[in-house]
């Protein structure tokens, strides 16, 4: 079980559905078609899962950086949206 250290310092189990949902929402926000957004979100979850393989505990910030790094290659606008949505909205 992978653990995510949140900003406040507490930990919670890694839930890939949360990552999937946030990437999916970022893709939709930049007008990515629904089907494509699903595929992109699935790919990002896979890549982040691979990166997590040799790690037991990472911070939520690490997950954010990894996801945005991979998302930038596929859809730079969605990556920007994903990274900065808290500032934008």
């Amino acid at each position, binding site marked *: 079980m992978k653990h995510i*250290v949140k900003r*406040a310092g507490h930990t919670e189990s890694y839930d890939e559905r949360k990552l999937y949902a946030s990437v999916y929402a970022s893709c939709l926000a930049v007008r990515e078609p629904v089907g494509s957004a699903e595929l992109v979100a699935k790919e990002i979850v896979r890549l982040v899962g691979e*990166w997590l393989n040799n*790690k*037991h*505990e*990472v*911070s939520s910030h*690490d997950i954010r*950086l990894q996801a945005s790094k991979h998302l930038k290659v596929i859809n730079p606008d969605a990556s920007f949206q994903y990274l900065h949505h808290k500032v934008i909205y």
Partner: protein
Amino acid sequence: MLGVGGQRPTDFDFDLIVIGTGAGGGVAAHAAVSAGKKVAVIEAEKVGGECPNFGCVPTKALLQAAETYEIAKHGGQLGVQASNVSFNYPAIKAWKDLAVRHTGTSEGEQAYASEHITLISGHAHFLSPWTISVGRRRYNAHKFLIATGTKQIVPPIPGLAETGFITYREAIDLIKPPKSLFVIGGGAIGCEFTQLFNTFGTTVHLADFAPRLIGQEDPEVGELLEALFASRGITVHTSARITRIVKKGSKKIVYFEKDGQTHEASVEQILLSTGKAPNTDLGLDNAGVSWDHSGITVNRFMQTSSKHIYAAGDVVGPFRFTHTASYQSRIAAHNMFHTKKKFSADYKAVPRCVFVDPEIACVGATEQRLREDRFEYQVGAVPISLIGRSNTSNMDTGFVKVLADRYGVLLGASIVCPRAGEMIHELTLAIQHGLRAQAIVETIHAFPTWSEAVRLACQKIKSR
């Protein structure tokens, strides 16, 4: 307590946690323990790091076997006849393994235990500036030293991943030399493996996108090496760009562009030596440590942007050698625990060696750098064929070249000569301490030694 979330812990598990047990980490760990500190080291792979396990030590052991084979084959010129000279590659590999064991890396764990250094196996990941996660446990420390080294860069060449390739890590463990080999990358590693496999009968192609081999050194070095390789039947492709690689049966076809034309080479194996990238995947952002594609950013005291975290070795640069890693590690260890007088890193005289035949060794500035800096300099160069040792050794290919400022103060040197790796230290000492070439000229050099060429080269420098 654990410091996760950014707050500094009130007490620490260790005085120092070193990430990486190579030259960059090990030296500081031992120094800190000697100073009475409580130390832990974290290692994700083999204890001892790259150099003794996969790098310098195994390749030099293999090259020694190659040199011995070469000498035995050509002894006839000196009247020494050896019939049926042959090699047994598995036995050569066994010799290499023995040389690696002799470095003591196999006893690395016991060595750490005997010094009461806690060895932790696993991948380290920073959760905060003071807390690190390894496996299922967290550790915190007053100071950290990051010495995680580098990993091979795999260039985005179409077909490379699908076709398959080896790197230096696999090349040292082959049980027989490939029949044919395409080496991508004409740096030190590429050239050493080219030399090695060519000696054992492999048909070798060596390609680099740079206009010459060992491109960071003075042009004469790469040009002479290319000529020497060509004379040994090695096909060197400089200014070549690999466009794609295709697998055809048991062969690998490498397509490359050179002089506007497409060429191809069919080989059994591909060896990748295209450079290395720093291992920075350890949560550096959580620790507030600045880094970029070239490595972790440090000041001259080996301190990162997070003041209690230091870094040393290949992950820092600017040189990626065992000797610079241990130098940086010593500096980091001193500066961590001595606040009154700090040591700073000085790279003006770093020896750089390539263990081909004849050896290549350089130190200090190159001509190109001096030209870029618009520095007024003078050159003193001699071929090694001028000296007595060349005559008695039946070896006349090579040179010694020294660079000095207009007052004759030595700035840089390049040597291509048997035992150049030993000869370079005289010039390293001179450059480090700002000596003039005249100081070397006035020093008695034994006859007949290769080092006489250093004196002769320095004689060509005018002192003002």
